[in-house]
């Protein structure tokens, strides 16, 4: 068990050590694009910074956090050490090597193509190789999660797989499918071109392959938060999980519905017809369902806890909840941000309404609220819950942790509400600086300044997070009760095989992917010459890297 804990801890370290500088970059970027003066006022540095911020947050923090979380969940929910610890360390080393390679290349100013790559822009091949190693290395984790669940099932025939393990395995399978898109783009298109193996670049195919990744990756980021909702929150609140079955269905639905929908990121693209765009737009509606079901299940679980603690009346259970517990506070704040961000998402996914806000600050606001807000705040709560169990050193202090969660919440709202409004007014995203004397931009100036304040609050909150974790780490060791998971109101005795494994669901995903992506990808092998010359990204003055 000791070895499994250490594995989880070292993954968490990489995630949070990357997180703080990435937040700092984000805060600087906001200053840079505002009417206020910014230190190091250089647009080339801005695009390198956006690339680093995106790569760090979307690939490094999330992958390392989720892998660490997965190892911790596998060991504690199955109640036995992880099988394949050596392989896990090898995977860790590959991911770390990839991370270093990508970060160094970005810092050298040779990879300012943003984490979404945008071919035919071409970065240094070392950036692509670094991204490839990081993502491919995480496939070791995927295999280990699947094997650990399978081994436990063999040893415990007929017994339902514990919900946390079931959910993290769903996450692993989801990530394997999601990563397939970006890995294919890297291996078939970007790496060959960057290392001189091909002349032209198939930009449209690259975009389409990346779209396979682009939506499901968000659910890969989201899953640890949802696993915490179902398995950690009810226990932290002192209650029971309302329904184990609903938990299983939710994670299955995320696996099935989050994949055949990525084309909604390409609604405005000319290389796809409206038929498949519309099909995937419709399927996107289904992915809302598991979230709506989760909100019900978690509210019901919290209500049980609130009533057990003496809450009376229709809403009296809400103030009765233990809001001083970081996990309970985090879920409350998370659901508020999920609600606000979710409504924005409904607009994004609408086939026609999307054209109002596509590629404006609205979209940036949307995913910062969902991922940077609702999901990341649960990462914090998970860290506060798990750090003491892994290190046997209690959290110092819960009050500071609560201040950190509140400040992150307010920081995120102050940042993203002005972004939403500026986006509706037509502010394009990914722009280093604006001419605020232009009448269009002039009216957005005050909004952008408000969001800068939000960015500074977020930076303060991120520093506080590290302070809490480091202080706890150097505190005195103490006996801490082991990590436990919420028990369902009606614990499952037997569950249907379909709710206890993923064979059927993987087959369904396969069929759906063929139906929804078969033609959109296949058309590029029929369409006449549409491959284009690559355009290398280079710093304006040679050697002038930031």
């Amino acid at each position, binding site marked *: 068990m000791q070895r499994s804990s250490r594995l989880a801890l070292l993954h968490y370290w990489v995630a949070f050590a990357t997180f703080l500088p990435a937040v700092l970059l984000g805060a600087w970027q906001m200053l840079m694009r505002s009417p206020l003066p910014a230190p190091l006022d250089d647009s080339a540095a801005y695009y390198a910074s956006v690339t680093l911020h995106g790569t760090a947050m979307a690939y490094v923090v999330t992958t390392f956090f989720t892998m660490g979380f997965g190892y911790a969940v596998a060991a504690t929910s199955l109640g036995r050490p992880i099988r394949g610890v050596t392989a896990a360390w090898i995977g860790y080393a590959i991911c770390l090597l990839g991370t270093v390679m990508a970060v160094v290349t970005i810092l050298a100013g040779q990879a300012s193509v943003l984490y979404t790559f945008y071919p035919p*822009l071409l970065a240094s091949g070392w950036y692509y190789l670094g991204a490839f190693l990081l993502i491919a290395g995480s496939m070791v984790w995927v295999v280990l999660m699947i094997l650990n669940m399978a081994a436990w099932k063999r040893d415990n025939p007929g017994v339902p797989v514990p919900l946390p393990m079931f959910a993290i395995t769903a996450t692993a399978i989801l990530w394997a499918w999601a990563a397939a898109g970006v890995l294919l783009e890297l291996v078939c298109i970007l790496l060959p071109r960057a290392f001189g193996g091909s002349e032209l670049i198939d*930009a449209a195919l690259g975009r389409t392959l990346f779209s396979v990744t682009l939506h499901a990756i968000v659910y890969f980021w989201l899953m640890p938060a949802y696993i915490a909702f179902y398995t950690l929150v009810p226990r932290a609140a002192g209650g029971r999980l309302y329904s184990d079955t609903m938990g299983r269905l939710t994670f299955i639905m995320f696996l099935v519905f989050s994949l055949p929908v990525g084309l909604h990121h390409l609604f405005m693209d000319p290389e796809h017809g409206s038929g498949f765009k519309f099909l995937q737009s419709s399927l996107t509606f289904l992915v809302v369902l598991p979230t709506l079901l989760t909100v019900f*299940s978690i509210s019901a679980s919290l209500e049980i806890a609130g009533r057990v603690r003496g809450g009376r009346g229709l809403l009296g259970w809400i103030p009765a909840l233990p809001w001083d517990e970081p996990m309970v506070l985090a879920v409350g704040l998370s659901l508020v941000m999920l609600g606000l961000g979710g409504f924005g998402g409904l607009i994004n996914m609408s086939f026609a309404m999307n*054209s109002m806000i596509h*590629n404006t600050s609205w979209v940036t606001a949307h995913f910062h609220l969902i991922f940077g807000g609702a999901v990341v705040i649960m990462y914090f709560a998970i860290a506060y819950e798990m750090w003491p169990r892994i290190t046997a050193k209690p959290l110092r202090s819960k009050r500071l942790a609560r201040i950190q969660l509140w400040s992150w919440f307010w920081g995120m709202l102050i940042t993203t509400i002005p972004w939403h409004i500026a986006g509706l007014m037509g502010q394009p995203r990914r722009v280093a600086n604006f001419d605020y004397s232009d009448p269009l931009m002039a009216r957005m100036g005050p909004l952008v300044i408000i969001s800068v304040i939000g960015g500074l609050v977020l930076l303060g909150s991120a520093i506080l997070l590290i302070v809490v974790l480091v202080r706890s780490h150097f505190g005195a060791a103490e006996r801490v009760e082991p990590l436990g998971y919420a028990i369902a*109101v*009606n614990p499952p005795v037997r569950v249907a095989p379909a709710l206890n494994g993923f064979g059927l669901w993987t087959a369904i995903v396969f069929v759906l992917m063929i139906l929804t992506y078969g033609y959109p990808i296949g058309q590029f092998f029929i369409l006449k010459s549409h491959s284009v010359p690559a*355009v290398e990204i280079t*710093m304006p003055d040679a050697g002038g890297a930031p």
Partner: protein
Amino acid sequence: MAEPSSNSPRLPLPDGLVPEEVVVRTEKRWFMIMAAMLVVMMAVIVATGITGALHPSSNVEVIDPTTLHLQGEFIESNLGTAFEPDGSVTVRIIAEQYEFVPQCLQVPVGTPVKFRITSADVVHGFLLPDTNVNTMVVPGFVSEVRTRFSKQGDFAMPCHEFCGLGHHAMWAHVRVVPKERLGNPTSLARVTCATQ
């Protein structure tokens, strides 16, 4: 020191606190309400999409970006606003690092306008704030967007997709003017701001 956990010692809650049937019944009810809500939203999207004819560019039209300036509809003399025999106008634009050609466009108010735009190098974006006009511009493909401007005025037209280190400098303008200001509608000459 750590503060005592507020929920320990834990209350040992009995199994079946809420009977299984109640759990299943309430969940089913919630599921039905949520599914109905999504169906209504979907219906609204379909209805408005069809009646409002709001179609993002989806024409899947291939073009060779390396010969744009040599042949076909995107040669330099053919860029800008052109009148069609039916009274509508077609506006042809090239996006390239880091400008739109032409940099300033004039289009008539209250007239069907068709934008045809393609890229000479990397992926760009095309956005007219306060309107539904929004498309990606992907090299190798022609994007086509149809609209009708209901009021006169100047629209800023930023590139909204990261296209390289000069991306922030890539802005153009669209002027919506009375139809008469654009001259003889049968003329073959292409209109830009410069020609006025």
